[in-house]
């Protein structure tokens, strides 16, 4: 048995070391990752995948810790993937979400993994999707993905999650602007955390006001749940809303979403393959080197050169 097969088998058996190794593979080795995912794919699709996003400091990690406890109380096993940004300058990352969840570490029914975005333009690490599949195949009932960032990365979370929870808190100032922008579109549930603070109701009203601007008729109207993550207050209600949304999806959208998700993944896979096969082919040709020399000589710019190469390719 190859190493990858061995790890895949371990993942399916729920072995934690194998899960950890598998996630390392999808972070580092695209080809082995493909083989690994192929091996486990038939065993995925059972977990409910929840995306938690919102501004830094809103209390997402603290809230996840309480959510996991409540899920455990309800008899569910849970996987957590906490994504933090990679520094664009050093390539390093400080993965600090786990600090708030350390008390869950010894629970056999919980697996927590920190990941860095690795400067993936989409914000959310490309490997996150595969990591979710690994935890799903390993039998976790619920998988929670935490991301932070502005704009596109939060929108990207939709591609991974079935239920998107946008977490906000009073006192984060301009961050409400971010909510008005991309986040409104993607939220299935809003959380106003730090409800122990007196201006929490103001935040609720702000969100309601923005929601009312959208007068489209919707099958699902995103509820707003107030929580105090430090005490766990409101967390059972949040889980109830998430469960309601899950059932809603099952009734109406699960089919459609998985279709779209499968399509997006298929298109992405095709794009990867096509691009690399064209590049490999071009590289073997004489004119590739010739035009390369022209670029070096500043006789042509790279974009025009690429166009030229590809146009000849089509003819």
């Amino acid at each position, binding site marked *: 048995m190859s190493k990858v097969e061995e790890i895949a088998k371990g993942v399916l058996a729920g072995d*934690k070391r194998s899960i*950890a190794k598998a996630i390392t593979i999808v972070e580092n080795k695209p080809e082995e990752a493909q083989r690994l995912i192929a091996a486990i794919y038939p065993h995925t699709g059972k977990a409910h995948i929840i995306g938690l996003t919102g501004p830094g400091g809103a209390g997402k990690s603290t809230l996840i810790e309480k959510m996991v406890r409540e899920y455990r109380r309800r008899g569910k096993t849970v996987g957590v993937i906490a994504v933090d940004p990679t520094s664009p300058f*050093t*390539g390093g990352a400080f993965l600090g979400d786990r600090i*708030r969840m*350390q008390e869950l570490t010894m629970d056999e029914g919980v697996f927590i993994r*920190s990941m*860095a975005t690795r400067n993936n333009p989409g914000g959310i690490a490309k490997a996150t999707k595969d990591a979710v599949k690994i935890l799903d195949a390993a039998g976790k009932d619920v998988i929670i993905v935490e991301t932070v960032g502005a704009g596109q990365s939060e929108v990207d979370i939709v591609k991974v999650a079935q239920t998107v929870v946008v977490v906000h808190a009073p006192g984060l100032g301009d961050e409400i602007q971010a909510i008005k922008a991309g986040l409104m579109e993607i939220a299935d549930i809003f959380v106003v955390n730090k409800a122990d603070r007196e201006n929490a109701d103001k935040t609720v009203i702000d969100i309601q006001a923005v929601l009312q601007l959208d007068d489209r008729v919707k099958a699902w109207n995103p509820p707003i749940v107030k929580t105090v993550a430090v005490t766990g207050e409101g967390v059972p209600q949040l889980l109830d809303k998430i469960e309601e949304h899950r059932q809603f999806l099952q009734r109406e959208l699960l089919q459609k979403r998985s279709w779209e998700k499968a399509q997006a993944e298929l298109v992405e896979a095709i794009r990867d393959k096509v691009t690399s096969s064209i590049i490999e082919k071009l590289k073997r040709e004489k004119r590739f080197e010739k035009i390369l020399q022209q670029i070096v000589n500043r006789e042509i710019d790279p974009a025009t050169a690429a166009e030229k190469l590809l146009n000849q390719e089509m003819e």
Partner: protein
Amino acid sequence: MQSEGKSERKIRVLIAKPGLDSHDRGAKVVARALRDAGMEVIYTGLRQTPEQIVETALQEDVDVIGLSILSGAHMALFPRIMELLKEKGLTDVLVFAGGIIPEEDIPELKKIGIREVFGPGTPTDKIVKYVLENAPKREH
């Protein structure tokens, strides 16, 4: 065997605080320095048991563990950590320690597999250089 496909293996480091220390300034300074050197650094927070540290290292699949301790309990806690690492098969992880550790304890700590011990006030560059040079080059 070199890796299949392109691999950009980042060094993943766990900075852990075993025992009952009440502050973690030093640990955070080291964590920041390692991050600034391009590593992915996971920090456990204060008051971790050996079991929690080893379980975290396993789930996060780290290459390196840095143990930071000030309380004087290293001779009680470190052997337990090393024992658990062995038990879980995490034998290729590079383990170093820092904080307040008397000179005379170092030989014993090295014997149980702590590869390096940095005293208080060690320049962070020195720790960064050490980790860069000694982190295991793992295939999986």
